[in-house]
């Protein structure tokens, strides 16, 4: 369904002394999502997860320069085709109700999303009703304003808005942040249902627990680079191959808050060789060479020491 190959995103920015600096929030991102599959994109804040979503939707700011390839159903996405696919074939499930117009009623906004996906008035009204019914939202919720819905209901409203247009690829941006465990689980189970209906789901999150329980595969992102693409169960099975993936997993509370000193490279640092070089406990001389993402076992890893 979606295949991202060696995506990089650069911004040019004017610094203090009127010097133009180039920052690379996304350096080398690759991943693919098949039909009926949930691929979780995990990584710390500032690793470029949200920019990936914006790049796929064609919503990067004007001063962004991208290279690499994004294929949707086998055809490369251009800015024109992205504009045509937004809302119709590719939909965003945003993070919170802040993404809804605060002065417009919820029902209108779901209906509008459905209209924008190319439906006529009557069909759009029907699919709005269906979306409300699917997520057990009462008819009365339609006349509420975004600030009146809370917690779990907000999640369902946002999912309803994104699915009112029958898109094939859904991008869920942090769907569990700030929710209590019960509501978070419910939100994830909605994504699972959508995947089981044959849709492709990109689950952007830093909740690794959530990613591991609901996703089929996980892409681990570090400083705008895919370091590992692996089946989700490899996390619990201890079969992770990249040292950063292991560090991420070991940092969870139930694994004892394992800690690796250092920070991910800044967006304006130039990096040659392994992106994780200066923090990696297993580094050797070989790590100074460029590291391609290569297939190892059932996944892909960007580490020269990884073995199948």
């Amino acid at each position: 369904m979606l295949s991202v190959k060696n995506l990089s995103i650069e911004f040019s920015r004017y610094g203090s002394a009127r010097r133009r600096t180039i920052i690379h929030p996304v350096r080398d991102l690759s991943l693919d999502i098949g039909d009926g599959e949930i691929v979780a994109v995990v990584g710390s804040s500032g690793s470029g997860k949200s920019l990936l979503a914006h790049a796929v939707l064609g919503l990067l700011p004007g001063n962004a320069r991208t290279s690499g390839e994004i294929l949707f159903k086998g055809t490369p996405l251009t800015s024109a085709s992205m504009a045509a696919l937004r809302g119709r074939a590719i939909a965003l499930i945003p993070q919170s109700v802040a993404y809804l117009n605060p002065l417009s009623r919820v029902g209108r906004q779901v209906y509008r999303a459905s209209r924008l996906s190319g439906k006529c008035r009557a069909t759009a009204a029907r699919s709005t009703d269906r979306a409300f019914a699917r997520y057990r939202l009462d008819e009365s919720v339609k006349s509420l304003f975004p600030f009146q819905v809370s917690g779990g209901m907000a999640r369902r409203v946002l999912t309803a808005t994104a699915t009112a247009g029958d898109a094939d690829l859904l991008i869920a941006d942090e769907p569990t942040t700030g929710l209590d465990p019960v509501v978070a689980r419910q939100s994830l189970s909605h994504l699972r249902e959508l995947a089981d209906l044959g849709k492709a789901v990109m689950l952007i999150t830093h909740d690794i627990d959530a990613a591991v329980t609901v996703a089929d595969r996980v892409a681990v992102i570090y400083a705008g680079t895919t370091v590992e693409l692996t089946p989700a169960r490899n996390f619990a099975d201890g079969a992770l191959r990249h040292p950063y993936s292991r560090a991420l997993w070991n940092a969870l509370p139930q694994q004892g808050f394992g800690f690796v000193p250092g920070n991910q490279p800044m967006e304006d640092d130039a990096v040659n060789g392994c992106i994780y070089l200066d923090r990696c406990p297993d580094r050797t001389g070989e790590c100074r060479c460029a590291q391609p993402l290569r297939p190892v076992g059932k996944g892909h890893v960007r580490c020269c020491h990884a073995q199948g």
Partner: protein
Amino acid sequence: MHAISASFCMAKIGRLVLILSLVSTLAFTLVSLSPVDPVSAYIGIDRMQISTEQEQRIIERWGLDRPAPERFLIWAGNVLRGDLGQSMIFNEPVTTVIGKRFVTSLWLMASAWLLSGVLGFVLGVVAGTNRGSPADRVIRLYSYTLASTPSFWMGLVLLAVFSVSLGLTPICCATPPGVSPDDATLWQRLHHLILPAATLSLIGVAQIALHTREKTIDAMNSEYALFAFAQGESRAGVAWRHAVRNVALPAVTLQFASLGELFGGSVLAEQVFSYPGLGKATVEAGIRGDVPLLLGITLFSALFVFTGNLVADILYGVLDPRIRIGTEEAK
């Protein structure tokens, strides 16, 4: 309307009383300390022909020999009974003068207010939606230039161009010479209104356009705009369906809250165009030492500005569902 609760009314009335008493005290103090002498203002150039004895009788009759606090209390007592006194230069009760003049000014202020509000809002939304485009540059240049233009100078330029050179518009007043306001036709009145209203609104446009532009840029970069774009909404669609509504709210309230500036602007514009409104009456009352009229107008303008702010407050509560429903649910 649920937004207007009893406590809201009480608070507003309390504030109004406080403002009016402070304004009247301050105005009365300033007038008492000023070199304005009501007697010579009243007598004018006949001053030389009046004996000291006669002058003394006028002073006693008006109570000018009594101390200022006492005079203030007498005046304030009369004001409370609705009697603002007699205007010396118009020879009519102050309330009548203010009433008549305000109606004339109202035409001017209302048209300038509407024109600047609508035009400024539209320009601001266009500029903010197409940030960095040629349209935005032109609108910004216009706004910055006009925002730093004094309104009386603008009025003079317009007069020079449209009335003197082109002869399209009348050079002064609210009606043709010799025609009383009651006999003037609607067209005559509008014809005389064009230039002063244009002066006031051209300058008012700048502020509201810049404010709206800023708010529109915020709205177009907001999270809800991003989600709308992600749903396939076009730039114009996001502007129309999402930004405009969110920007209109602060713009409407700002426009009501700016009634004070409008009032100040009309004083200058009316002076330039000899437009016989409240602003011109203010200047005349000041120059010719008409103390009762001056105090009356001061009180009236305080009331006027207060009303504008009050309407802005109420509108916010009525128009914004977050406040309207929020207060309902809080009960």
